[in-house]
């Protein structure tokens, strides 16, 4: 595998420097995102990337103001965090039902330098195929940025699984063929549905950040070799799978080790860890 490599799905919930600057992020971590681990210096996050053999990480916020009363990082806070390390790639967030949503996204990309959009239907309580969200998709497609959707099961208490069903993304993929979509967590437990979508719609990508029982090694082996044969990913979806860990719900090192142990060819691993993320982000910057 060539040097570089990206973790396409991380949440900077435990970065201590940011929690000290913005104390409200502690409540966001504990009461909205529901993560109980200790806050850590940014150095730990970067060392996690080193331990996984990766160069950079996408860091995502979630605007849960309407549904949870707070943002799990704002766009400005993500930009502030990314200014601390050139190894972090910031994504934006917005309430997609908000009338100003396209302007907010344009501002986040144009002025804050963010390079993608994260939407979390379960936490933000919307269905991806609602017409009210379409202006945001038009905006993202025009900007050429990827949209990372939470899909599948959510751990947060109060979040409903119904918002994460992959079939709620089909109309979006069909109506916006130039929109670069990433469905997170392999949309587990609906992995076969998500794979069917990706097979049919080349603008749909899947990230590997799935862990719902056992451990990364055993879980991914089950979902990516038993639920769906590995050959489907290797032969048909090699350019539509990106590595994601969902850190800090899973350590980057553990998820990377699990993906590398699946049995992909070296060429495919290079796409999963490096090439596909670079294509989605429009190259390395």
């Amino acid at each position, binding site marked *: 595998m060539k040097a570089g490599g990206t973790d396409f799905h991380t949440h900077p919930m435990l970065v201590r420097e940011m929690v000290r600057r913005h104390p409200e992020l502690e409540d966001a971590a504990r009461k909205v995102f529901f*993560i109980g681990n200790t806050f850590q210096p940014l150095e*730990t996050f970067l*060392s996690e990337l080193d331990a996984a053999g990766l160069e950079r990480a996408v860091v995502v916020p979630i605007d849960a103001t309407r549904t949870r009363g707070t943002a799990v990082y704002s766009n400005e806070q993500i930009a502030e965090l990314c200014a601390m390390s050139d190894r972090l790639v910031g994504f934006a967030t917005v309430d997609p039902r908000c009338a100003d949503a396209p302007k907010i996204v344009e501002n986040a990309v144009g002025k804050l330098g963010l390079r993608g959009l994260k939407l979390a239907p379960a936490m933000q309580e919307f269905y991806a195929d609602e017409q009210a969200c379409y202006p945001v998709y038009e905006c993202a497609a025009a900007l050429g940025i990827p949209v990372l959707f939470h899909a599948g099961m959510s751990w947060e208490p109060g979040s409903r699984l119904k918002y994460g069903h992959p079939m709620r993304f089909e109309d979006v993929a069909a109506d916006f063929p130039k929109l670069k979509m990433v469905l997170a967590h392999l949309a587990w437990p609906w992995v076969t549905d998500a794979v069917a979508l990706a097979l049919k719609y080349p603008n749909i990508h899947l990230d590997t950040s799935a862990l719902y029982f056992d451990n990364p090694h*055993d879980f991914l082996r089950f979902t990516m070799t038993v639920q769906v044969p590995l050959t489907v990913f290797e032969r048909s979806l090699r350019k539509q799978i990106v590595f994601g860990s969902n850190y800090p719900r899973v350590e980057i090192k553990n998820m990377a080790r699990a993906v590398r142990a699946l049995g992909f060819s070296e060429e495919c691993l290079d796409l999963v860890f490096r090439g596909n993320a670079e294509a989605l982000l429009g190259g390395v910057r």
Partner: protein
Amino acid sequence: MRFRLTRVEVQSCKDLEMIDITEHVEAAVASSGVVEGLVTVTTAHTSSGLLVTEGVECLERDVLAHLERLAPKDPPAGSYGYWHNRYLDYDGRLGFNAGDHLKSILGGMQCFFPIESGKVVRGGRQRVYFVEYDGPLARTVMIQVMGNTAVEAGA
């Protein structure tokens, strides 16, 4: 009698790592004013440990490799796996690091040395190690010095 507790943050950079913290222990004793007594060193975490051994890199590798053999990160194949492979609601994530907790139990989480004439009494080759079993992480080590000051010892 004086008791003084010092908390030291240790940043590990690897998954498995031995970090020599002898100087932290000696500094805590020196600054405490205790001239005769005891110092204890304790890790605050259940997937890390405290060990005393010779300070050479080859031995560090052997210690980590031996503990990994005894308590592997991946669940042992065959007749049993790890029970600690499930969702932990208090953490908001799955626990799957049973091997790291078991290493901590096998290797121990504490050590102690006597203090004499204001200095840690240890063998010439003995070094105090914080041992990371599930890094990288910023960890806390507690150094508790207890004993008599020079005045109390009548020196």
